[in-house]
């Protein structure tokens, strides 16, 4: 055995696993993350799938990646650039090298570094033979060969053996970052419960990788990342899409109504449908409709019949649902529309993240057709905002749009499992037995919500529909003044939702040189960038908005206390447009990126610094 290497302690480290779609990189990344989570690190992950269709093996289009940042301090993003990369083939190297920090450690599978593979990756030159090498610490490990060697005595066929090579790479990384192996071994045992030879092979290769790294003196240092000080409690990994699905079940229980989902598959929202289809034991009714219009219309029918109804989709689906959303608005039925945003317009960049459906969520329907819009900001809080959306929908009898995005939906983080008993109930106003005639559009004085009167209730039969209706009876009404009244009262009802909207939180001081405003899935990046700048002595604060319509009541006051206000979004300035229209005394600046990628901490900080310095941008 070799001499002990140095062990450096790090606060944070970002690791990227990359390989061909068939190389199991998502699993490898998740296992690394899970092990780190159990160890007590804070972390954030981001899977980076190839574009939808399986590309030929070995091509850049076929590269699948998984990035994770772990830390002994709070971690809010998967990291701008990686400190370590595992590249299972040249294509993985090529696809990722731009996002690797200079000086980083790169582990490659030497055995995959062939002429043939270089060609598939369309690399004209072998990068190992260029200057590039000098900028990184490149570890050429014979991963494939060692894996086969390790398994030569097993009964697995060659393909089966090769399938274990990701474990070898994982073993190397475990050693490099000083992780324990127990959890992973336990996980493997559970996953392949019925295939002991597979468990055996994977564990063997994992340990072999670990030992290889320990033995061979390729690494002069390894790293230690202490557990983070995180809140006590029971945790699990959760993705935004899973969190929405669990939120739906939770909301149904809190409202004491069956949950209903009418949906049509679409990337990146489909996982909510998949997840929810599993929870039949909670009485969840899931219909995969023939299309998005069918999906929302079924949900509207279910809401009308008394279920807690949802429809989930992404951009193109939201466009298709526009007309039916209008029906829910005028019928005043509770309904939650979850839109997991992706790159647009049209089919756009379907596997990439973006925040470009906000204006559509606000205005994308004919007629005066207002509804509450809220947005989640971390994978975990997709759960809470789903519950909140349902609460607003039921208590105000209105459709609500909940915006998440591909980054939140697919990304995951450790989630402190909440105690459901501490959540408030969702209360529906159900009509009492009534003197005739029943007035279905009579409103609650405070919320302006009508009652939720559903078929089957005795002696309350009535008719509703998409034509303008009389103020109280709900009968069709062409009376001009009634129309104006109804249009205004529907708008006011949405404004009154503000009573369920908590005050806007401000991260930083109440006054200062620069207020950064952001919303939705960019929270982690903005939080990191702003807190780092605060630590560096800048008078910067962050208001990250979750309630987009109506805005929190104190927002205006916050805005007025800063010299400059900049709105940062992954679009061309949609929240900017709304804010500028509503708070027109302020001159809002904007910072936008529209590349299907999250913000980098670095670019944000650079931009904020320029603003603070008064640079002419």
């Amino acid at each position: 055995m070799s001499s002990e290497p140095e062990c450096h302690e790090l606060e944070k480290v970002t690791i990227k696993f990359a390989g061909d779609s068939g190389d199991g990189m998502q699993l490898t990344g998740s296992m690394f993350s899970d092990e780190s989570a159990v160890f007590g690190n804070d972390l954030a992950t981001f899977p980076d799938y190839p574009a939808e269709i399986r590309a030929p093996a070995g091509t850049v289009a076929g590269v699948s990646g998984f990035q994770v940042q772990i830390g002994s301090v709070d971690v809010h993003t998967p990291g701008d650039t990686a400190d370590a990369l595992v590249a299972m083939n040249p294509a993985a190297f090529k696809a990722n090298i731009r996002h690797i920090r200079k000086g980083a450690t790169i582990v490659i599978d030497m055995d995959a570094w062939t002429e043939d593979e270089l060609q598939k990756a369309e690399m004209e030159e072998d990068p190992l033979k260029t200057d590039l090498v000098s900028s990184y610490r490149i570890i050429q490990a014979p991963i494939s060969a060692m894996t086969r060697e390790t398994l030569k005595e097993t009964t697995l066929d060659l393909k089966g053996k090769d399938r274990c090579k990701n474990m070898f790479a994982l073993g190397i990384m475990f050693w490099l970052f000083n992780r324990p192996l127990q959890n992973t071994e336990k996980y493997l045992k559970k996953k392949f419960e019925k295939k002991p030879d597979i468990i055996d092979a994977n564990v063997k290769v994992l340990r072999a990788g670990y030992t290889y790294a320990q033995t061979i003196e390729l690494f002069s240092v390894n790293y230690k990342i202490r557990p983070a000080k995180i809140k006590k409690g029971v945790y699990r990994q959760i993705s935004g899409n899973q969190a929405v699905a669990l939120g739906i079940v939770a909301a149904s229980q809190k409202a004491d109504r069956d949950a209903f989902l009418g949906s049509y598959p679409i990337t990146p929202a489909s996982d909510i449908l998949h997840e929810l289809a599993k929870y039949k034991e909670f009485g969840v009714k899931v219909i995969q409709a023939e299309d998005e219009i069918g999906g929302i219309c079924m949900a509207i029918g279910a809401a009308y019949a008394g279920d807690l109804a949802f429809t989930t989709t992404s951009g193109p689906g939201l466009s298709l649902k526009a007309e039916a959303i209008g029906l829910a608005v005028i019928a005043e039925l509770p309904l939650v529309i979850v839109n997991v945003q992706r790159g647009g317009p049209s089919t756009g960049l379907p596997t990439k993240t973006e925040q470009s459906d906000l204006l559509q969520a606000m205005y994308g329907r004919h007629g005066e057709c207002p509804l509450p819009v809220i947005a989640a900001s971390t994978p975990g809080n997709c759960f809470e905002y789903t519950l909140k959306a349902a609460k607003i929908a039921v208590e105000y009898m209105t459709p609500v749009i909940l915006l998440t995005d591909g980054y939140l939906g697919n990304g995951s983080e450790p989630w402190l499992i909440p105690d459901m008993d501490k959540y408030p109930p969702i209360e529906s106003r159900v009509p009492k037995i009534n003197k005739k005639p029943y007035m279905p559009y009579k409103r609650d004085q405070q919320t302006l919500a009508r009652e939720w009167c559903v078929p089957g209730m005795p002696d309350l039969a009535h008719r509703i529909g998409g034509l303008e209706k009389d103020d109280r009876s709900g009968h069709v009404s062409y009376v001009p003044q009634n129309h104006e009244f109804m249009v205004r009262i529907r708008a006011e009802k949405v404004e009154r939702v503000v009573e369920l909207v908590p005050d806007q939180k401000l991260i930083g001081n109440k006054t200062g040189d620069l207020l950064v405003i952001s919303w939705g899935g960019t929270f982690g990046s903005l939080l990191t960038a702003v807190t780092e700048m605060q630590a560096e002595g800048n008078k910067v604060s962050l208001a990250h908005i979750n309630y987009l319509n109506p805005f929190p009541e104190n927002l205006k006051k916050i805005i007025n206390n800063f010299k400059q206000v900049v709105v940062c979004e992954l679009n061309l300035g949609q929240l900017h447009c709304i804010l500028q229209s509503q708070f027109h005394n302020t001159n809002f600046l904007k910072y936008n990126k529209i590349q299907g990628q999250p913000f980098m901490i670095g670019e944000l900080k650079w931009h904020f610094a320029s603003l603070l310095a008064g640079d002419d941008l």
Partner: protein
Amino acid sequence: MSTAEKITEEKKITRKDFMTDQAVRWCPGCGDYAVLVSVQNALAQLEKNKDDVVFVSGIGCSSRFPYYVDTYGFHTIHGRAVAVATGVKTANPKLDVWVISGDGDSLSIGGNHFIHAIRRNIGLKYLVFNNEIYGLTKGQYSPTTKQGAVTKSSPFGSLEQPFNPASLCIGAESSFYARVTDTNPKMMTEIFVAAAKHKGTAFIEILQNCVIFNNKTHEQITGKEFRDDNQLVLKHGEPMIFGQNKDKGIVLDKTELKVVRIGENGITEADVLKHDAHAESPNLAFMLSRFTLPQYPVPIGIIRQVDRPAYEEQLHAQIKHAKEKKKAVDLNQLLNSGDTWEVD
């Protein structure tokens, strides 16, 4: 108390119980009136509790129907009635859910939901008022308008081959298809009652007259002087005989059906095909669906009615089964499922 007394005491449900106070707004002479009455009669005959009945409609003249029936009602948007109704029925299978729609509403814009509902066999009574025209929007051709018809949107004559709603329905795996005319309230009521008892999607095509924009489009079928010769009234198990003198019948000739005259060429009643609405194979129903004037009489009545599990039944059975299998599960348990770890 004598039986007689009991009967007088029991509140008898009548058509009146299903009438609302809303003024009915169809053109005088519109076929929709007769359908309304027949539906109300059927509901009375079925002794339905009005609280458990829902009418869901799209947009069109016919789709104002829910306002005139004193049950729950939802006048939705164009083409989407059956999708909304699917949600209603799935949410609460105990409700009697009736869909009211037009040839434009269901066969044009709503075509997709229409074929999918039929395939899924969701428990809906699905009435399509086929007047072969867009009534509400004042007279454009619809997917059932006859080829060549001059309408507002086809001043030179429509070029389009119309759908045959029966063929389309059967092609979409229908478990119940019937055709009625707005001129025969008695038969309408009868068939609405049969539909109400059917499990799954009971689709009824109503040949309805639009006096304003397509007057007499069904005249050759419904007119007093034509109906006996031009209607083939079908009853399960009975021979397919028609004609003023009951002297015409249908026989099978290889893969085709043929009209014959009983008594001619040695043909007797025994040679005539018997209607089999319950046949598992849809072949006969499909053949009948092809009958159009002038070559064939138009089949009226229940053309197909077979047993097939309804969608909502199956879904609720799956849920019940899942609940039984995992009885103890509560929300906190669900959240805590999967890989968890504790930080302390």
